[in-house]
């Protein structure tokens, strides 16, 4: 298990290193790097990691898929890998076979609702859907008047898409479904609801943020050992060292929170309060780390890091952008606070200590 986990992650890591080098991407104004990268990822079966073999995927474990997302975060790749993985996973929940090509999930925010009409068509509007413009298919989670959830495979061409960009410059679109007939629709398994999808997406984003922070730490340390000011490497100034130590702390906190949550979900037998705590805590803490850690990385880089030519923004802006997907940290903090209050003061420590 541990060994195969490494093989999947190593494959991903190698493809990114070969085809998603930040420097190359940054110089390529036209985005020509995307096609060969996506092709290589697809050839390796990575976008459909979480789809069982009998549903057209490569049947990797949840843990293996999560390690792919960490690697994707370290390279801050802007292709719909996480989105297609999530979509494939969602479809697989209802035993729907995944088609090839780019996919994304709808909705991508806990506030948006897609409804199943009486005639089996879908209606609703979802904001901030990552890569909707690029995706050939959507995996949609919708509910009917009775509140039963269904999973649907929808042809992206049948929906209205208003394009938008997130902070990192990646597609983040508004998707409107106006009585769209899905390609396939099946009931979601018992107990599966929108919170479950949002938390899975949130953990994916947490791993990506943590990965981006690892890279920010890495390039900031390297830069501080190269840049000379006042006749010294800036890494020799105590103030700079302390900033980097804080960045290491934020990076470590994000990594710990995200990997703990991924582990919790990969091994969960039921979706209880403990798993909820792990997932939302990761999203909240990683978002905080993106803000604090990203700020320090920029400080250490000085003006050069503020230029479009430098690679820092690939990591810092994406980490900031990823905070907003699948529920922001403020949204989840309110939900977590309500849960804690509902359980009562004397149940708080038992909850925290349960893992």
């Amino acid at each position, binding site marked *: 298990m541990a060994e195969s986990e490494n093989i999947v992650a190593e494959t991903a890591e190698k493809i990114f290193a070969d085809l998603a080098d930040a420097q190359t991407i940054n110089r390529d104004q036209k985005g020509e790097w995307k096609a060969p990268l996506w092709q290589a990822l697809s050839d390796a079966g990575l976008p459909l990691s979480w789809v069982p073999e009998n549903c057209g995927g490569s049947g990797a474990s949840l843990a293996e898929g999560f390690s792919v997302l960490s690697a994707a975060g370290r390279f801050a790749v802007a292709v719909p890998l996480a989105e297609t993985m999530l979509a494939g996973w969602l479809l697989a929940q209802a035993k729907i076979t995944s088609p090839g090509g780019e996919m994304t999930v709808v909705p991508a925010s806990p506030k948006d609702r897609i409804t199943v009409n009486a005639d089996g068509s879908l209606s609703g509007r979802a904001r901030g859907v990552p890569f909707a413009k690029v995706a050939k298919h959507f995996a949609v989670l919708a509910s009917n008047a009775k509140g039963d959830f269904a999973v649907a495979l929808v042809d992206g061409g049948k929906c209205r898409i208003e394009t938008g960009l997130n902070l990192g410059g990646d597609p983040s679109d508004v998707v409107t479904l106006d009585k769209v007939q899905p390609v396939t629709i099946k009931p979601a398994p018992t107990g599966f609801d929108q919170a479950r999808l949002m938390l899975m997406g949130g953990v994916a984003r947490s791993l990506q943020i943590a990965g981006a922070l690892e890279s920010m730490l890495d390039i900031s340390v390297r830069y501080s050992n190269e840049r000379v000011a006042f006749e010294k490497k800036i890494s020799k100034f105590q103030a700079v060292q302390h900033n980097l130590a804080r960045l290491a702390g934020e990076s470590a906190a994000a990594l710990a929170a995200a990997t703990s949550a991924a582990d919790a979900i990969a091994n969960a037998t039921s979706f209880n309060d403990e798993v909820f705590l792990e997932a939302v805590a990761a999203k909240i803490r990683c978002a905080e780390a993106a803000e604090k850690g990203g700020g320090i990385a920029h400080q250490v880089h000085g003006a050069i890091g503020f230029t479009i030519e430098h690679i820092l923004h690939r990591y810092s802006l994406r980490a900031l952008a990823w905070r907003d997907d699948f529920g922001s940290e403020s949204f989840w903090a309110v939900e977590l606070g309500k849960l804690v*209050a509902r359980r009562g003061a004397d149940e708080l420590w038992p909850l925290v200590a349960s893992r």
Partner: protein
Amino acid sequence: MTAALRFDPIRLPSECEQLRKEVRAFLAEEIAAGTFDPHKPNREDTDVPEFSRKVGARGWLGMTWPKKYGGHERSFLERYVVTEEMRVANAPTRRFFVADRQSGPVLLKYAPEHIKMEILPRICRGEICFAIGMSEPNSGSDLFAAKTRATKTDGGYLINGTKIWTSSAHIADYMIAIFRTSPPTKENRRHGLTQFLVKMKQPGIQVNPIGQITGQYEFNEVVFTDHFIPDDHVLGEIDGAWKQATSELAYERSGPERFLETYYVLTELVRAVGNNPDTRSAEGIGRLVAQVHTMRRMSVSVAGMLQAGKEPVVEASIVKDIGTIWEQQLPHRVRELAAFVEETATNRETLEKQLDFAIKTAPKLTIQGGTTEVLRGIIARGLGLR
């Protein structure tokens, strides 16, 4: 990658859950019997000898040490559970905690056999209290500036000088201290310090209490005047204490006591807010819970590394750095949220008293056990910057 920081998601094994139940049941009994009040972190009676002995009798001291010294050969993760449950309950651990966490492991590593046989079982029984003699009036962060001298004499050493900020020295039976046995060398300014086991309440040792801004007395000045220490009380290598001191740090720095010292105000806030909080309170509580959960996951992860025989010095320093800053900010965040608590909250008075005390406690949290600045220096070294 420059820094391969890893915090694996270590899970506490099932024996820990059984143990946790036992500790909770024990603490509930002690609270019911009036041994301590979990709602009064500011109580005066933080030294409760009977409580220590009961904890020892349960087998919760020296948990990871060899059986032949009275230990229990259990795991660091089991010890972790006992520590965090005691801390969250505000149990009076003052008498035994330093010995269990730090002094015992030093003796295990560096003391001669007959001293181990004599002292370790007594620590395990909760009978004796230890103090740590590192800081001096002109040597805090710069540990290696210590001046208190140990001069060789017949059969031992004579000690002269002053230690300061020595927690629990007034109740301690022993202190593990560093003294200067020779001057630093040109090549190595850390050279020349030696670790000693000091028997307190002996001639030539005077303990002067120092009050703290919380109104409590916990630390002291300790003055040595021609105090005699026999040869067999030298711990480890003469002049080589600097090598020994660093490996001690991972134990001192990453435990649950490093982020839970003001935790009680969070529980009390949740109580005051009730089961239907407004949005602002809910968000505030949610963030704090997410943060403490993350801290704890990191801390458990370091305990797992210790269990695996590693020396996670950088990771432990990171946990202490962000842990102590968290516990320092916590009372202030709770205070902000407490402004919205209903006047009628049944625990309002308790919350206010706890906040007062926690806010007074907060300034020390980033100083004791190594300041934030010093820790960041250690982390920077780990990152390859120094």
